[in-house]
């Protein structure tokens, strides 16, 4: 038997699902298991993967999610905060699939870069050498968490491709949906314009920062942010901007949407931090999505369990102030 040292982001052994990750039974069966609150383990068989859009992707051996219990596909795709498509978590799965066509998609890269332009997503993916799979924890600011097998490419590849000028310190990312199509929803989504998120360039080039184009080995569903969605697993989920249409490099920190809406509740960094509470609830623990009625809570880990990897980015900063 090979002995391996557990990585910082892995869960304790008791939460391990036997066998490997991408086993998925027919939806009814595993949801039944959940409904019965069965003590957890889902015995799933290999899912057939879609073969288009660069799929299947090879698993990145550094992020196999060993020890993590992957959240069922049905739950990842039906429990969404995506206010442009409705305020209830059930809404996006319905409203984002009423004819919203995210493909073909061009992403515009601009601002302080040497290689600005509008690029077709498929071309970009080819330039970046295809896609890979990574299993990450996902912690929402609302104190719930999932484990998601993402497909996509490291954000650092896109940054290198854009080739930022020396003065560029931040990325400002903007959601870019077809206004006419979602006008109805966008009028009352409460977001005050297009969704904006930002990262420091050193955060964006960190090995963990990822752009998802798929989940579970299939193209990412519209409600999860097709076709390009930011994944920063050490930060709260709202940093993970969906439908990225524009990336601008700047020398000033962009004001992200939730910071603009409620400055005392959501900051620029949004790093997962069990010691800094939200004004309305504790962040010390979280509910695991799909845990059923009697599952209790699990402790939230500093930087969502990625402390070893990212803590150095925030050396010397007061994380209670820079929340």
């Amino acid at each position, binding site marked *: 038997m090979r002995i391996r040292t557990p990585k910082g982001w892995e869960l304790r052994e008791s939460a391990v699902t036997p066998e490997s990750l991408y086993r998925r039974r027919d939806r*009814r069966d595993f*949801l*039944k298991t*959940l*409904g019965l609150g069965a003590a957890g383990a889902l015995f799933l068989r290999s899912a057939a993967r879609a073969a288009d859009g660069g799929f299947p992707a090879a698993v990145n051996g550094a992020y196999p999610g060993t020890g993590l219990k992957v959240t*069922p596909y*049905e*739950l990842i*795709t*039906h*429990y969404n905060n995506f*206010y442009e498509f409705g*305020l*209830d*978590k*059930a809404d996006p*799965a319905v409203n984002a699939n009423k004819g919203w066509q995210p493909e073909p998609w061009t992403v515009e890269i601009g601002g302080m870069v040497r290689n600005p332009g509008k690029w077709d997503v498929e071309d970009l993916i080819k330039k970046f050498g295809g896609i890979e799979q990574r299993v990450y924890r996902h912690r929402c600011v*609302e104190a*719930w968490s999932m484990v998601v097998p993402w497909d996509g490419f490291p954000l650092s590849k896109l940054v290198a491709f854009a080739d930022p000028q020396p003065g560029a310190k931040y990325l400002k990312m903007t959601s870019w949906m077809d206004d006419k199509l979602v006008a109805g929803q966008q009028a009352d*989504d*409460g*977001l005050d314009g297009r969704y904006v998120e930002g990262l420091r360039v050193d955060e964006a080039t960190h090995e963990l920062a990822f752009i998802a184009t798929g989940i579970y080995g299939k193209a990412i569903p519209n409600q999860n942010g097709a076709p390009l969605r930011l994944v920063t697993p050490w930060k709260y989920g709202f940093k993970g901007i969906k439908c990225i249409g524009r990336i601008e490099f700047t020398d000033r920190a962009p004001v992200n949407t*939730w910071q603009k*809406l*409620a400055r005392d*509740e959501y900051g620029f960094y949004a790093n997962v931090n069990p010691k800094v509470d939200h*004004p*309305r*609830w*504790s962040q*010390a*623990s979280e*509910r695991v*999505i*799909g*845990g*059923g*009625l009697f599952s*209790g*809570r699990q402790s939230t880990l500093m930087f969502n369990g990625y402390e070893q990897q990212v803590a150095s980015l925030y050396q010397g900063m007061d994380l209670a102030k820079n929340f």
Partner: protein
Amino acid sequence: MSPSPAASAASAPSGLDRLFRSKVFVWIVILIPGLYPAWPLFRQDPTVLADPLKYLLHHFGFVACVLLAAVLALTPLRVLLPKWRPALALNRHRRLIGVSAFFYALIHVGFQFLHEGGWPTFWTDIRKPFLLIGSITFLILLVLAVTSFKFMVRWLGGRKWKNLHRLAYLAAFLAACHQAAARKIFPVQVLWIFVPLALLELGRIIRQNSDRAPAISAPRQG
């Protein structure tokens, strides 16, 4: 006491009137929202299964607010539509509806307890302002429910009891604040529930003031 002019001019008993008088009917209407969550759970609705406790927490809080607003709406309804017998019929059930609002709130708080995974988190979280407001609301409803027994009404005396139960208006206001703060973005359902109530109350105040004016010169008998 002779029948008031309003009552003698009231419409003849109708089917709706009889239905609204029925205790069984009101019980059924009150119980349906309590049983409703069985449906999405049975259908294996993935959004509900993702975090069933959160769903139940929200659902029962919502129902508690609706019932609280409903019971408070009955008085202005009766004042504004004195001739409409169904309004009078519904007013017979005020205690039942009010107490059921308390029980739904109790279940709501119970689910919050489970959702928090027990005392430690429940206790630290309840100090957050929005939960303190919920707690005050809950305490008011508790006091009103406990004093709704007939012997309590007798023990307190009519006037004291009435004054105490005016706290229900405060409870509704606080419940609306609590509900409005519960989501990340202002939830419109607060308006659907509480704006009609506010309009009815406004109507009642206007009506009662205009009724009172002539009453000074010619006091009504009764």
